[in-house]
């Protein structure tokens, strides 16, 4: 399999990035959902949020790389069988996934850094705070983070269902292309 996308196929880099981000997003959602309900005396009470934040920062960096790669190696053209509405819907849907994910990650960052603290990433390096004085910052960012996380995983589910619809009902290559076919 080629690394770069061609006009007809996805290359290895885009495919790996896609599935890596997919697994990470659902993993972070599950981790986040679980960790906010932990008992104060749970041994995970401190470590789970640390891991959630560390992976979140790494995901942000991966997503920046993914955007760059998209510039360097644009995705293949839509399948000829896809009509105008399908193409438009897919474009808007993908735009929401990208944009939503960035807003989601930034809102999480704004919670943890609202008082000027940085975010240590697995103890390797620390991302410093930037915006700290928005009134009610941690609360507003917290609400955005919570609701957007739900919206995004639900939307990602719809994205997956749409891919399955293409595969099972339309019997086109939409889904298999994301596996390099």
């Amino acid at each position: 399999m080629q690394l770069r996308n061609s006009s007809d196929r996805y290359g290895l880099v885009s495919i790996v990035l896609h599935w890596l981000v997919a697994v990470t997003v659902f993993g972070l959602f599950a981790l986040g959902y679980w960790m906010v309900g932990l008992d104060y005396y749970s041994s995970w009470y401190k470590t789970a949020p640390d891991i959630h934040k560390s992976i979140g920062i790494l995901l942000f960096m991966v997503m920046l790389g993914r955007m760059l790669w998209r510039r360097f190696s644009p995705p293949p053209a839509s399948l000829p069988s896809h009509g105008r509405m399908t193409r438009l819907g897919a474009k808007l849907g993908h735009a929401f996934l990208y944009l939503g994910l960035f807003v989601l990650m930034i809102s999480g960052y704004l919670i943890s850094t609202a008082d000027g603290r940085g975010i240590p990433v697995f103890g390797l390096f620390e991302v410093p705070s930037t915006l700290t004085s928005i009134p009610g910052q941690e609360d507003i960012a917290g609400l955005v983070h919570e609701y957007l996380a739900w919206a995004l995983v639900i939307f990602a589910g719809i994205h997956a269902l749409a891919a399955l619809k293409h595969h099972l009902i339309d019997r086109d290559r939409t889904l298999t292309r994301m596996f390099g076919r």
Partner: protein
Amino acid sequence: MLKKTLAALALGSVLFGAGQAMAADYAIDKQGQHAFVNFKISHLGYSWLYGTFKDFDGSFTFDDKNPEASKVSVTLNTTSIDTNHAERDKHIRSGDFLNVSKHPTATFESTAVKSTGDGAADITGNLTLNGVTKPVVIAAKFIGQGDDPWGGYRAGFEGTTTLKLKDFDIQKDLGPASQEVELIISVEGVRK
């Protein structure tokens, strides 16, 4: 013995000798913020965690000739909690603790003041916190009063009381050492 007598005399002169002996209404000095509603709670039994509420207002009536006729009323914005840690503050505002979106204000209204001597008094009143109203007793101490350098007249107090978190329907269990929180209230009023 002598020390005690002197102290009593000094206190007597403060309480009764100043000639400013009328019941007067005071507004908590919010403008200059010479007023604090602080709290402390044990962390695991190993240290004290301190926090404060930044936004509150209130007034009191104080008559040094008749301290038992004093009254106090305070309204506090629970969202303004600050423990010097944004994530913790966010957590305390949530349903696990103060439920501030549902109960944005806490209030205290005194119902009785009982002098306990030496410029001290027990202030009984109704505290409403997290939507629960319960009587509490604040052990208060008169700190001082007199003219300020800017043309006003001020009086100040400090009081403490201990609340059981469970009494005010605070759900999160922080462990056996952290079932209670101590409130430390320090206010200066400017005579109206």
